[in-house]
């Protein structure tokens, strides 16, 4: 968005990146971040070309290939350390983002609702919206989330 000319200038120039502040009395540090990595690959145990498939995946995801090409072509941010492949033409948000990711002390793999059932995912998303618009109190939110988790 920061480089997209279709986005109006006022918005384009005011995009920034910041670390989620620490909650007072919370257990986490500011460098403990949540990043959802978009999926993964698997090879079937009964595949006729199992070894070759694994070799291909290993080759594809070598940081010289995946991380470098993905970053240079603006495809996505690799889950590996990609800081060695910066081109020097990065925008301010990209630089700030890279600093945050490379400086993190821990990254949780998946969001909490990805680990639940489909029903829990829907309920938790609805509840998050309800909390944001104030139709449930934080206490009700926690109680209802607990109820949904039990099911």
């Amino acid at each position, binding site marked *: 968005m920061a480089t997209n000319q279709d986005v109006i200038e006022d*918005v384009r120039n005011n995009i920034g990146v910041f670390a989620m502040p620490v909650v007072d009395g919370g257990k986490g540090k500011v460098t403990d971040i949540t990043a959802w990595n978009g999926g993964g690959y698997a090879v079937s145990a009964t595949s006729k070309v199992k070894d070759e498939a694994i070799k291909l995946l290993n080759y594809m995801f070598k940081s010289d290939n995946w991380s470098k090409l993905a970053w240079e072509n603006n495809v996505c941010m690799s889950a590996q350390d990609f800081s060695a492949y910066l081109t020097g033409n990065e925008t301010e948000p990209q630089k700030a983002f890279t600093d945050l990711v490379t400086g993190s002390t821990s990254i949780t793999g998946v969001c909490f609702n990805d680990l639940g*059932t*489909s029903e829990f*995912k829907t*309920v938790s998303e*609805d509840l998050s*919206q*309800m909390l944001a*618009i*104030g139709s449930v109190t934080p206490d009700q939110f926690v109680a209802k989330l607990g109820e949904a988790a039990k099911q």
Partner: protein
Amino acid sequence: MKKLYSNKWVILSLVAPGILTFIAAILAPICLSVYYSLTDFSGMGNAAFIGMENYKDLVKDAAFWTALKNSILLALGFIIIQHPLAIITAAILDKLQGKAEGIFRCIYFIPNVISVAIIAYLWKFIYNPSFGLLNNILHFFGYTKDVNWLGSGMAIWSVLIVLIWHGFGWGMLIYYTGIKNIDPVLYEAAAIDGADAKVTFFRITLPLMKPVIQVNVTLAIIAALKQMETVYLLTNGGPGNETQFLANYLYKQAFSSFKYGYGNAISVVFIMICLAATVLLNKIFQDRSLKKEVR
């Protein structure tokens, strides 16, 4: 030929395709739906019979009642706002004559020709709180705050406006066809008697349009209850189920939460509501026409 038509096997063979299609495409799915509504089926694996549990949950489900309330609100919006406007517009269009008639008829029908997906995204841009058209217009007139049109409290009205606007052309076109079918001799006779436009509209156009209004209002109410695509693309029932509609809620339960049995329970209640609405509307319109005949 007469002998052929009195043969019961011939009659059966002529009626069979229609009946079979009805059974296969409508009756059987409804029966299956009723069956699945009594199970905890998730869409995959085995379905265990749980009796009326889904229906009991449904009665206690606040989101379901919000969805029903919104669907009824939309039906009222169609009847109170969309249809009177559509009839008046159709009557004015009929009086315009010439090129203007065709041009305006086209303009009013354009929203119906455009795909629902495009309509939804178009309105998302119009409603955008940061750089949307609507807020920019407000800024132009000196209003400095950014209104969140699809935010809490405001979203349902924003969605209703889109739906009423989108269905307007269709309703208008049916009314327009109805008006075109009225014998022009009646208008000529009224004009000779000195009736003005208002009297002609209320005494000739409206009474003769009754069957068209009946069909159109019934269609509108069913459309309101069935509303799904626009809502799904515009808000998906959010924020926090505030703009939830029956059909969208059904879809969400069955295909997002994978509560297929529960989704079917909603669909069974949904069918009953649609049937009740149709019967009720037929009753309302029938009673009035009967009373008139008695008079």
